[in-house]
C-alpha cells in the first residue's frame, strides 16, 4: 500500500475545511485514510498541530475606521480628468475635415467649370445657325452694292458716250444701243428691288435716278429702226437738261459710303 505523503495530507486537511468540499483526489485520500492506520495517525497529528494554530484575530476596529482611512487618504488623491480627446485625435479630425472641405470645394469648382464649358459649347453650337441666318444679309448686301455700283458705272460710261457721240456716225450709235439693252434689263431689276425695300438708309435719289435712267435706256435700246441724228441730238439735250449723268455720278460716289449701312435691294440678283 502506498502511503500518503505529508504534502497530500496537508492538501487534504485544507480541502476538508474549504466550503466547496474535497475534490476527487481528496476523496481518494479520504478513502486511504480510512483504510490506513499509519496515515490516519499522521493526519491526526497534523490536524492537532494545525488545529492548535488559531487564526490570528486582528484588533477590533470601530465602525468609523473606514471613514478615518478615507480622511487620511482623500487629500493625497488626485482627481481623475474626464476622458478628453488627445490633441492628435482632435488634430487628425480637424485635418480630415479641412481636407474634405477642400476636396468638396475643388469638386464643386470642377463640376461648375464643366457645366459652364458645356453651356458655352451649346451656345456656340446654337449661335452659328443665327449667324448663318444673319450673315447672308451682309454678303448679299455687299453683292448688291457691288452690282449696283457696277451697273451705275456702266450706265455712266454709256451716258458719257451718248453725250459725246457723233449723231451722224452709225458706227458709234449701234454699239450704244446694244449696251443700252443689256443695261436696261439690269436697271429694271435694280428698280424693282429699290421699290420693294423701304429703308430709310437708302439714298432717296436712287429710285428717281433709276427711273429716269430706265427712260433714257429704253429710248436708246428700243427705238425702232436706226436712230436718226435728230433723235440722238434730242437724247443728248434731254440728258444734259435732266442732269442724269450728274445724278448717276453722285449716286456712284455715294455707294461706298452706304456699303455698311445699306440694306439688300437686289437679293435676287
Amino acid at each position, binding site marked *: 500500500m502506498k502511503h500518503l505523503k505529508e504534502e497530500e495530507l496537508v492538501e487534504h486537511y485544507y480541502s476538508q475545511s474549504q*466550503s466547496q468540499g474535497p475534490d476527487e483526489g481528496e476523496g481518494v485520500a479520504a478513502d486511504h485514510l480510512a483504510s490506513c492506520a499509519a496515515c490516519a495517525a499522521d493526519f491526526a497529528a497534523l490536524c492537532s498541530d494545525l488545529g492548535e494554530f488559531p487564526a490570528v484575530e486582528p484588533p477590533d476596529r470601530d465602525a468609523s475606521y473606514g471613514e478615518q482611512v478615507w480622511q487620511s487618504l482623500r487629500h493625497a488623491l488626485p482627481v481623475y480628468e474626464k476622458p478628453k480627446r488627445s490633441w492628435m485625435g482632435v488634430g487628425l479630425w480637424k485635418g480630415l475635415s479641412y481636407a474634405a472641405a477642400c476636396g468638396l470645394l475643388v469638386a464643386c469648382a470642377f463640376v461648375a467649370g464643366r457645366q459652364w464649358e458645356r453651356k458655352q459649347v451649346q451656345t456656340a453650337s446654337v449661335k452659328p445657325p443665327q449667324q448663318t441666318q444673319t450673315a447672308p444679309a451682309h454678303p448679299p448686301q455687299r453683292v448688291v452694292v457691288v452690282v449696283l455700283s457696277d451697273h451705275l458705272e456702266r450706265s455712266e460710261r454709256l451716258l458719257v458716250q451718248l453725250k459725246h457721240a457723233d449723231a451722224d456716225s452709225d458706227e458709234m450709235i449701234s454699239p450704244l444701243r446694244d449696251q443700252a439693252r443689256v443695261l436696261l434689263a439690269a436697271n429694271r431689276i435694280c428698280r424693282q428691288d429699290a421699290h420693294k425695300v423701304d429703308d430709310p438708309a437708302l439714298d432717296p435719289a436712287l429710285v428717281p435716278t433709276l427711273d429716269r435712267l430706265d427712260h433714257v435706256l429704253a429710248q436708246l435700246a428700243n427705238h425702232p429702226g436706226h436712230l436718226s441724228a435728230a433723235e440722238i441730238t434730242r437724247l443728248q439735250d434731254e440728258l444734259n437738261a435732266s442732269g442724269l449723268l450728274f445724278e448717276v455720278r453722285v449716286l456712284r460716289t455715294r455707294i461706298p459710303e452706304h456699303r455698311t449701312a445699306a440694306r439688300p435691294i437686289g437679293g435676287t440678283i
Partner: protein
Amino acid sequence: MFRMGKNDQAAIRAILSGDKEAYGALVVRHSQSLFRVAFRITGNEADAEDVVQEALLRGYQKLESFESRSNFGTWIYRIAVRCALDRIGGRKGDKGSRVAEETDPEQDEVQVAAQAAGPDRLLLSGEIAALQQAALGALTPTERTAFVLRHMEDRSSEEIAAALGIAPNAAKQAVFRAVQKLRLRLAPLRVRI
C-alpha cells in the same frame, strides 16, 4: 460622501469621471477586510494600517487599469496582500526570532520555556501563541503569506496564486513548506504538551 447604496462599479465610473469623493464609499466598504488580512500577514497593527492605506492609494492610482468585469473587493484584496508581502519582505530580522528573557513580538524576541518548566505553565502563560507567532516570523514572506491566506483566510490555492502572482502549484508548495516549518519549529512544544 458618495452614497453607500451605489455599487462598486458605479462608484468606480464616478471616480474615473472626476468624482474623487466617490472613492470614499469604497474605502469605507473595504477597509475592515483589508485591515484583517494585513494584520494577519504582518502581525503588526501599525504595519497593517499602513498596508491598508498603501493598498487603497495604489488601488486609486491603478483604477484606470481595473477591469470592470472583476470584483473590486477581490482586486483591492490582492493589492493589500502584495503590499503586506512587500512590507514583511522589507523587514529586518525576518529570518527568525531571537531568544530573550521575555517574549516580545515587537522585537521578534521569544522566551523559550525552560526544559524544567511544566506543560501547564506553558498553556497558562500564553507563551504558545508567542511561539507560534515567532514560528510564523521565521517563515519566508511568501510562505508566511501563503500560509495565512490558506490557514486563516480560507483562500484556495488558485486565489493565493493570483494574490501572490505565482502559479497555483507554487502556491501549494509554499503552503506545504510553511506547514512543514511550523510543525518542525513547534515540535518541541508538542512533545511537552
